[in-house]
Structure formats: C-alpha cells, structure tokens
C-alpha cells in the first residue's frame, strides 16, 4: 500500500474534527472521500498534505513515516477547490515558480513547462493571467501544477465544484486519465456521489470526522453498513421504513413494484426523469419514493410490494446493518 493512514486524528480545541481514521490507498488507485459538508473529508486531505498536523496517528507514504514531515518533502500534488493559482503570475509563470524554487535549471524549467502546457492543451494561454481564463482552463492549470510536482500522492479537493454541470461530466474521463497515468495513489474529496462513483475505484463515506464505510461503489450501494450510508448513496434516496421491534427496513426506490394486493398508497407528486419517473407516495408506513419506468401509467388504486430479498435491515438504535435473518 502506497498511502496509509493509521488511526489518524485531529483536534481543534476540544473537538475532534477527524478521529480514528484508518485508510489505505494502493498505487494507481483513486479513492474518493465522500460526505456532507463538515464531515472532515477536507480536513483529512489537509492532514495527508501536511498543511495541518495530526494530533494522533501515523501517516505513511511509500512505506515512509511522514507524520511530522513538512508538506514540501511529502511531495504532494494537490488541486484545491479554488484552484489557488497565483493571480499575479501568468500561466507559464505559475507553473515555473515551483520548479524554480526547487532548483531546476532554466532550460529544464522551460522544457517541463512547455511539455505540460502541451499535454494540457494550454499553449495558447501561457501568457495569460488566471483571471483571463475560464473555469475549466483554470482547473487544467491547477492540475498541470500538481502534475509538474512529480508527486508521490495526488490530493484533489472538490476539483469540479466550481464548474458547471455539463463541463463537469465532460471533464471526468480526462481528469481520471491524467491523475492515474503515473500510477500514484489519488485521494479525491467530493460531496457529489455521482462524481465519486464516476471517478473512484473505492469510496470512503465520512460522517462526523469518522469513516463510516469504505468500499467499491457497488458494495456501498448494495451492502451499506449503516442507515447513513444507505441514505447517502443512491438517488433517489432509499426508503427507510419506521422501526418495528428494533429493526429498520430499508428498500431502494427501484425495488418497489406495483401489485394487486400490497401496501395501499396515494400519489403525492410525480417527477419525470426521462427513461424513468419518480413517484412520491403516501402510505400507512410513511412516505415512499418509487422509481418506475417512464411509460408506466398511474393505476386508479396504487398498491406496492417488494421482495424481502431486496430489503436492507438495520438495527434501530445503532443504525448499523443488522445480522438478524429476515423475520
């Protein structure tokens, strides 16, 4: 394993903003940290980068303990949410500054900057300042700077959140290709589950400074270990039925089926999603979301059923996946 976090914690005052964090990222693997804002995912990234010091635990990069090593010597390629380009320098100067202070010769600097500008298709913008660039171009400059760092680990903090939705989708494959091309571990922070699923091999869902579950997108979707992960992953959101004898049953909207004798429901709202449609239903067991084919017509009498095999069971007190067999 190329990046290892062992029981990492960081405290601000008396609050632990990250605690008991256990994480391993392999070479050439992209791990997404996913969670609501304030869950500690960006703080985790700052700890890996060395911008903040861990109050407990150990960080290993390529087998070396870097817990107290300065950010420079950790060799981190980081893309900030704001891109954090140097606004008073041109694109070429932005890229060359780091090379210069790291004592590359003038010809070497030029060569490297030129080749990265070429790779990122930024040649035409070399003499422009960041303010003159579009959001996508700024992101490419920030990424170029990270690539030039020749890093041991890539850290990306919401690199897409300042771009519009269309551009975001267009850029995903390109970004993925570039950050994975030299086979280093990548940690990708996002609050957008679609982006996490599109970009990452594995996803770590964070909540209140702790890792709730780590797994492939499929694992998180099909075997969520807690109600939090179950409702965070998957849109439209999973249906959590009211607890009965200490057990919460959860069922995905697409697993609900119309039937002739099931749970009677009343339609409150309908959303067209193109190939499918989302029904918001009122039932004796609370509100339900149901995903159905786009051409389904609304029956006079809506009754729902589902296969017990599709039920996720959670303990009502802890919210954790329950080991009990279906009753």
């Amino acid at each position: 394993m190329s990046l290892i976090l062992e029981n990492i914690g960081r405290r601000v005052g008396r609050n632990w903003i990250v605690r008991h964090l256990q994480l391993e990222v392999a070479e050439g693997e992209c791990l997404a940290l996913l969670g609501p804002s304030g869950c500690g995912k960006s703080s985790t990234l700052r700890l890996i980068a060395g911008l903040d010091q861990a109050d407990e635990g150990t960080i290993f990069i390529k087998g070396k303990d870097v817990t107290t090593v300065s950010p420079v010597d950790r060799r981190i390629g980081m893309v900030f949410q704001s891109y954090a380009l140097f606004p008073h320098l041109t694109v070429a100067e932005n890229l060359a500054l780091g090379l210069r202070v790291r004592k590359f010769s003038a010809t070497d600097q030029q060569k490297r900057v030129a080749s990265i500008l070429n790779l990122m298709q930024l040649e035409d913008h070399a003499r422009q300042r960041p303010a003159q660039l579009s959001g996508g171009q700024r992101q490419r400059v920030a990424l170029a700077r990270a690539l030039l760092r020749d890093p041991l680990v890539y850290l990306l903090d919401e690199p897409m959140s300042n771009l519009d939705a269309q551009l975001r989708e267009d850029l995903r494959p390109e970004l993925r290709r570039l950050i994975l091309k030299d086979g280093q571990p990548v940690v990708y922070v996002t609050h957008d589950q679609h982006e996490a699923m599109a970009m990452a091999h594995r996803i770590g869902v964070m909540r209140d400074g702790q890792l709730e579950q780590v797994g492939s997108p499929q694992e998180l979707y099909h075997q969520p270990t807690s109600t939090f992960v179950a409702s965070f992953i998957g849109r439209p959101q999973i249906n959590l039925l009211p607890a009965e004898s200490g057990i919460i049953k959860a069922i995905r909207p697409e697993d609900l089926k119309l039937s002739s004798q099931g749970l009677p429901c009343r339609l409150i709202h309908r959303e067209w999603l193109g190939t499918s449609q989302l029904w918001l239903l009122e039932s004796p067991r609370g509100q339900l979301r149901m995903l159905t084919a786009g051409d389904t017509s609304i029956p006079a009498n809506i009754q729902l059923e589902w296969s017990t095999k599709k039920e996720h069971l959670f303990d009502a007190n802890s919210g954790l996946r329950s080991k009990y067999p279906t009753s």
Partner: protein
Amino acid sequence: MIRTRNLWITVLLLWSLAPLLWQLYTSFCSNESLIHTFATHQHRWTLENYRQVLTANPPFWRYLLNSAFVGISSTGLTLLLAIPAAYSLVKVPRNFARGARLFLLGAALFPYVLLFLALLEIARSLNLGNNLLALSFPYAALSMPLAVLLLSSAFRDLPSEIEEAARLEGLGLWQRLRWVLIPLIGPATASTAILVFLFSWNEYPIALTWISTTDLLTLPVAIARIAGSSVYSIPYGAYAAATVLGSLPLLLLVIIFQRQIVSGLTQGAIKG
C-alpha cells in the same frame, strides 16, 4: 438625481480645493496687490515670489530634497518592519492577535505631539540631532501602528489556499513573501507607503526640534521660516509659492500610484 449628485460633488470639491486654489492664486500675485486688494495695479501678476523662494540661500529645492530623503527613508524603514509584523499578526493565535490589534489601534490614535519632548531628550542623548536619516526613526516608529494594521488586514484578506499552494510547491517563508504574498498585497502596500510618506512630509514638531542647521531643514519647518522671516511684514506671496512647490511632489506621487491603489490584483485568484 444625477444633477443633484453632481452639485454635491462640486460643492465638496470647492470646499476642499478652495484653500489650495487660493494659495495658488496668492503665489502669483505681487505683494502690493495682495495688500491693496481693490487698488488697480499694473503689476498684479508676477513670478517674483517663485524667483525669490528658489534663489534664496539655500534654494528651496534643497528643502524638497531633504524632505524627499526623509520621506523615502521613513517609508522604506516602516515597510521593512511593518510587512513581517503584519504577516505574523495573521499567523499568531486569534486571541493574541485581537489583543495586539487593539494595542496597535491605541498607539495609532495616541496624539504623538505629547511625545516630542521625550523624543527630543532621546535625540540629544543619542546625538541624533541635525541628522536627516535619524529623523526617519521617530517617523517610522510613529507610522508603524497604522501601517501594521493596514497591511495585516490585507494579508488576512488573501485566501489562505494561495499560500498553502505555495507551501506545497516548496516555497519557504521568505520565498512565499517575496514571490507570492507581497506582490498580492501591492495595492495595500502602495496606499500604506503613501500615508507614511505623507506623514513624514508634513511632520512639524519633531523636525523643528531635531534639526537646526538651515541646510538640513525639512519643508514644513523651512516654509514656517519663510513666513516668519521678517518682523515687519508677512511675505504672503513667497509663503504661498513655497506651499505650492511643497505640494507638487505629493500630487505627482498620488497621480503615479493611483492605479496601483485602485486596482484589485487578487481578482480571479478564487472562483470568479
């Protein structure tokens, strides 16, 4: 709406410019015409006042040079000390910084005239009298509180991610200041520098008591000497000419740095 606004601007401009314009007018009038305002006089307009001021011994530009020298050295010294102080004020724990800011504000508001006797004693015991460079020590010291406050709020307004990116790129503390942070607070630095320069250009009591050699006088003291040069009459014309000459460099300075002060260099650093 626009007409009333323009009217207000005109009134304000007249209010603040009238004394200056009057001074300019006076400087071109002969002394006779100034005294007998309503008498028709053949030689009303004259450059005599300027000739008198510029050909005195020492000539007036000597005082301009003295003041410029003191101004530049005080400004340089202030910035040299205030920039690192302002930067560190952003990095220290928040409560300490808050206390330090209050303290600086108190120092900035303190009427410095109360200090000049004590300063004179210091100058005497350290033998700093009649030395232009030494004059920039009290000037820099008195300007420090305001300079640190202004610059530290400029540092505080910089997005912290920019400095962090520089850290990750391998820039050490001085490299970050030199290549990233100081260029980014350029506008704030320019306006701070102008304030310090202005203070040193206009300062009177300390300059009056520290300098007695005629060749080393700074502008305000020199101008005051012109006004009080004769017991029998006040040379209004020469006095006005000296004031006009003394204001020109400042005017020039503000015109040169105007764009620097106004331009927002940080635009586009963050999303936008």
